[in-house]
């Protein structure tokens, strides 16, 4: 022990660990422990009101139940639609806006702030405002549509056909700003030489965009895609505030399904199983992206 104490590296390490101890203990208590506990719950049935004595082992039953849970399957489908539509839309619109704002335009700073503002606003506040705008009979959006002569505007949140897309539109509006700001930073990193050289070779602006800007921004796109995909899979706030998963489960997503299972039906074990499925999906998607990124990077 004494010898160990004499070793300077040990003492330095100890000091280091002690310094991170406050934060680390919080992490253990409030993050790591709940994660491990939820992993344990996946194989159990928990009668929550009986406290810890209400936990009983059920093996893989929770996972077997997934296949015959229509709400889970519907949520999986809705999550997929949500991600497949909203992520590319945010990326494309964000890129276009970034390229435009990177050139000389009037009110550049004002526009940039305006577009970024939704992203830093409270998602709940944004959802409340949008649900008022979406109101089918007296909401501003439908009133404008009626003024343009559309006699039967969509029901937005009150129709099972349009509710999911109404939420997608809102979340794209929120995330465009994020994509734009990251792209603006990425654009600064592209050497001007490339554009000058291509101009001498007679390349048009459009060609420059697709042959220089887009490929040079690949790492940026990768970053945005990963964060937005994770964000979109976890979508919860807008659903909880605007539709509660309705009408007819048309906006039921995994995170809201988990919330209902745990907090309304008290099926803690099953809810934990669904949340680990959600984790697995995000994990796999991210792994695939890492793999494909390695391939892209070889081109540079």
């Amino acid at each position, binding site marked *: 022990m004494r010898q160990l104490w004499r070793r300077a590296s040990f003492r330095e390490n100890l000091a280091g660990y002690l310094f991170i101890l*406050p934060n680390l203990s919080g992490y253990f208590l409030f993050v790591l422990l709940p994660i491990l506990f939820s992993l344990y719950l996946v194989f159990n049935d928990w*009668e929550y009101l009986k406290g810890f004595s209400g936990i009983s082992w059920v093996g893989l039953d929770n996972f077997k139940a997934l296949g015959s849970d229509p709400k889970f399957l519907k949520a999986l489908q809705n999550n997929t639609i949500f991600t497949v539509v909203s992520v590319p839309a945010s990326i494309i619109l964000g890129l276009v806006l970034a390229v435009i704002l990177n050139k000389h335009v009037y009110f550049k700073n004002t526009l940039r702030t305006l577009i970024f503002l939704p992203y830093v606003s409270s998602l709940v506040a944004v959802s409340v405002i949008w649900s008022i705008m979406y109101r089918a009979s007296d909401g501003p959006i439908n009133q404008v549509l009626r003024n343009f002569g559309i006699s039967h505007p969509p029901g937005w949140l009150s129709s099972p056909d349009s509710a999911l897309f109404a939420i997608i539109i809102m979340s794209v509006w929120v995330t465009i700003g994020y994509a734009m700001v990251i792209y603006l930073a990425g654009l600064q990193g592209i050497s001007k030489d490339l554009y000058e050289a291509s101009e001498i070779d007679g390349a048009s602006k459009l060609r420059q965009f697709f042959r220089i800007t887009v490929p040079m921004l690949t790492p940026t796109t990768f970053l945005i895609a990963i964060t937005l995909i994770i964000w979109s899979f976890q979508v919860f706030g807008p659903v909880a505030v605007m539709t509660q998963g309705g009408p007819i489960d048309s906006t039921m997503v995994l995170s809201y399904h988990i919330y209902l299972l745990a*907090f309304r039906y008290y099926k803690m074990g099953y809810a934990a199983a669904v949340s680990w499925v959600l984790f697995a999906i995000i994990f796999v998607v991210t792994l695939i992206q890492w793999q494909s990124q390695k391939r892209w990077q070889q081109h540079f």
Partner: protein
Amino acid sequence: MKKAFSASASFVLAISLLLSGCGKGGNNEESPAASASASPSESASEASALPADGKAITLKFWGGVPPESGPQNVVDTWNKANPDIQVEYTRYVNDDPGNLKLETALLSNTDAPDLFMTYGDDRMTKRQEAGMTEPLDDLIAQAGFDVDGIIGSENIKKFPDGKYYYLPANKNIGAVLINMTALEAAGEKIPASWSWDEFAALATKLNKGEMKGTTLDPALSTFGDLVLQTAKAKDSYIAEDGKSNFNSPALKKGMELQKSLEDQGIMMKYSEAVAGKITVQNELLTGKAAMSASQIYIIRYIKDVQNFPHDFKIGFAPYPQFTAGGNVNPGGGMGDYMSINKNSKNKEAVMKFMSWYLQEGNMGMTPGGRIPSSKKADAAQIASILIGEDKNLIDEESLKAMLAGSYTFPTSYDVPVPTELKAVYREELEKYLLGAQPIDKAVETMKSRGDSTIQGAKK
């Protein structure tokens, strides 16, 4: 040596940071309860009223009503008169996460409430089954509380072991609230007894221009539910054979009533009402709807002219009935179930407070629209407290008639898996109202899903 010193110094620093971090967390959690329970003017007198040995018992009391709507006054009155038993009121929001918070607090060893309110038979059953509530019979006998004389044992659920696990503090009364100006303009009078068809006819008559004939808060009730309760007041979701009652003609009638009112534009579409989060008070008091099948508690909003500016009177009619001559009162019945935490250390003191609350204390909740459950409470006094200064906004005669009436209150003491059954009903109803399935298909699916849900729970 120097290094060893610095290492130990940093260790001390780390520990102190950790401790202060924890300490702060604890304080933060305490503060909302503390600030809610002690209003500044009151705290001084409370401190001086404490007994000399400073050993006053502090009871924690959790309920769903905001402190300013009555509970704070009630608790303050008690605390002034009983310096040795101080009660601290904490509000929990009566929704899914709020109830989970209460239950988690009940499971904890520290900060657990001694006394808590439960809203709804389904939650009460769950909590009793989980053993969270103390059987009250011995405590009632000890305190000399006359259950039959004050509340009536017929108004309390009998649990399988024949014991009381809660005492209700509040009596809800359901009523159809009508905009009197609109009613008079239509040349109609407040009906004394009527059928659901007559209700639909009146709604059609009242439907004029911007004002819809009727409205419901979709989060609280639907016509299917209401009509079903007027047909079968006891355990309406369950048929006599123990299976689901979703094939009842009354339920079908209610669902069809709602669909036809919506299709004719007499009532806002269900999906729009859900998306718009409409409330009875808002629709009724801003003149967007003329009539609503709701409850007496809306009086709280009728009197709140700051948030709901209006100048018309609201009248009160009894609920329409499925069978002629019935007197079922949906939305009405005993509420505010008071139970004692099984792990409370001061059960006798809690019972003492509860006994006072049920006999006198809950009168302090009346201005907030909650009527005491006590049979001995004076109906005329309740009416005058409810109306207060607002005779120009509340139709006194019809309100007094409502309060004086005797009703059969729907109960659902013995419905298995009530949350799940309600979800089955709501999901299939939604599909029917949105035109995704016809009524017969809806009823058929409801029935079979309901039956298998009940079957699944029995396993």
